[in-house]
């Protein structure tokens, strides 16, 4: 299988280790990974903040860059959902039927990492080892838009040495919500505080998720409160191996 990596602007710029881990896991499983360098951002931040009309070009760019890919894989449930759920609506609202049909043709080939591994490739054990207590936060868009279900948990359960503990009220939003975290910073912080309390209650030393953005939020809160608990992207745990 040949997979084109859609890294997301956030991971590209701020969390390169997530991208490296994604490549490592896929290559370990024999997937041929390529990285189309013309990609930039999917446009979700603009679209969800009310500026979708300014980034229709990014929809066209995505279709141009990834249109011929066998499979597009991304370490972000939210950005995958933007392409799969949001793009067609944006194209339709702009009255560009040709673009909408291109999006329809591409969208089913855009997969979040755990979807690709579990649902498409049928692999749960990726040969990882990780000797820590870990709790998993299902991010809203991976859960409710992509409906990845328990795919990430299935992958984590197969990791050797892992002590996977359940996060109470896991399905409640961490309060990130893109520009919501800034425009409604107080409400966002109240949501984050409750999420952090539940993470700390598990006694985990690592909180993991399938989205760098939510992890940036949770991690930013953990770091500010000097909690001594870190966040790691799902891909990074799956890439970990015994030395």
């Amino acid at each position, binding site marked *: 299988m040949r997979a084109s990596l859609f890294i997301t602007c956030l991971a590209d710029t701020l969390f390169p280790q997530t991208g490296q881990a994604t490549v490592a896991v896929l290559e370990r499983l024999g997937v041929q990974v390529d990285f189309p360098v013309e990609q*930039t951002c999917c446009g979700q931040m603009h679209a969800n903040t*009310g500026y*979708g009309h300014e980034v229709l070009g990014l929809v066209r760019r995505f279709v141009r860059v990834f249109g011929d890919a066998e499979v597009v894989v991304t370490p972000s449930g939210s950005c995958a959902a933007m392409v799969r759920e949001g793009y067609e609506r944006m194209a339709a609202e702009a009255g560009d039927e040709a673009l909408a049909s291109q999006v329809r043709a591409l969208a089913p080939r855009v997969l979040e990492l755990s979807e690709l591994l579990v649902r498409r490739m049928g692999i749960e054990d990726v040969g990882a080892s990780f000797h820590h207590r870990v709790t998993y936060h299902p991010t*809203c868009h991976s859960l409710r838009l992509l409906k990845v279900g328990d795919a990430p948990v299935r992958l984590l359960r197969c990791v050797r040495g892992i002590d996977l503990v359940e996060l109470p009220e896991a399905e409640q939003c961490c309060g990130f*919500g893109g520009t919501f*975290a800034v425009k*409604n*910073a107080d409400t966002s912080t109240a949501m984050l505080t409750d999420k952090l309390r539940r993470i700390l209650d598990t006694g985990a030393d690592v909180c993991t998720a399938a989205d760098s953005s939510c992890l940036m939020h949770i*991690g*930013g809160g953990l770091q500010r409160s000097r909690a001594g608990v870190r966040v790691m992207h799902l891909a990074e745990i799956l890439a970990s191996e015994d030395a």
Partner: protein
Amino acid sequence: MKGGFPAAAKASLADSQLRRNLGHATSTIRAKRARVVSEVADWEALREAGREIKERTLRHLDVHLERLEEAVTRAGGTVHWARDGAEACAVVAQVARAHGSEEVIKVKSLASDEIGLNEALERAGVHAVETDLAELIIQLGDHDSQSHILVPAIHRNRAEIAQLFRRTLGVEVSDEPSELTAAARAYLREKFLTVKVGVSGANFAVAETGHVVVVESEGNGRMCTTLPEALVSVVGIEKVLPRFADLAVMLQLLPRSSTAERMNPYTSIWSGVSEGDGPREFHLVLLDGGRTDVLADEIGRAALRCIRCSACLNVCPVYERTGGHAYESIYPGPIGAILTPQLRGLDQAPTLPWASSLCGACYEVCPVKIDIPSILVHLRGRVVRETGAEGLGERAAMGAMARVFASRRAYEAAQRMAKLGRGPLAGAALRPWTRSRELPAVPAQTFREWWKERSR
């Protein structure tokens, strides 16, 4: 409040008693709803049927409303068309006057609160007595207002309510729920038996037969709709259903979604007037109040499918923390965030479409499948394009970032600038973020730089 939702939310978030009351109430009802919904094997099919009925009705709303008018008139009722709240309030005041009544008894009704009926009646010399327990609590309180569609006094706990009753009704009560309801019952019973005019809203109105339907839990609605000489029902035009059989779907969806009950205790269904039984006069006021404008928005109009169950409030992580008052509308929570700006005009509530993290929990539970997150995004776009509410600074920043993402070279240049803490991709402008959260350090090497190096 100046500053809209963010400012109002900040005030609510600081109220620790409110946070505790809300957290307890919403988590209890969330769990109960999940339990009773899971009992229904074909719940998803029911939701789809509910969506379909409402969507189809809204497409030909004019036709269904005229059929409703005909049917109600045939059954001996009088139909009034109200363009706005003022016209609707005037009809109610006129009926009260015609019966020489200085009081009306009211069934809990959101439409009446939306148009400020109680205040309008007060100005016309008519006192409206709320007979729903929670509405009564709100009415007795000083400057209190509803904070939930279904449980309007959700922000009060029973200790606070006992104190309120002791002070305003002059009764000695403990905070035992049975004592509190007994005190309210004694007060209300006299009103039911003496007041000549009743006022209600409606959950549904059936075009085919002219039936009006009120769904409730306390029996006060049954009293108000049967005991007075005259009954006025103020009903939003989106409440019409084409066929009586449509109730079979709606009356399954509503109780489980709202009170988390398999069936609600009281369902009152009547059409027009019946000789020797119930009110001798029935008036149906069909309220537009901005709804026709909402219909004009092809995406936003789905908000009119709402059956006011409040399931979206109970699952919303924003509502759970801010409570209803922060939305500054009788319609709070996710549904309020899409309904209020559309009913009042976007420039009147421009911050509400952003009062959501777009987590999608609301859409998941909505019994008529209103895709609230998508409508929020759509309304955000309309606020940006049609009002100046979002400010020039944000527009400039968004424009700069759009230009960066439009070209690979500009994007890679901005990434290099970000390492120096500068440019459109640097987080320097994110002060509201850093008040409670650290920003990640910008790494020395971007992913694409690593990829390029590796491929060499």
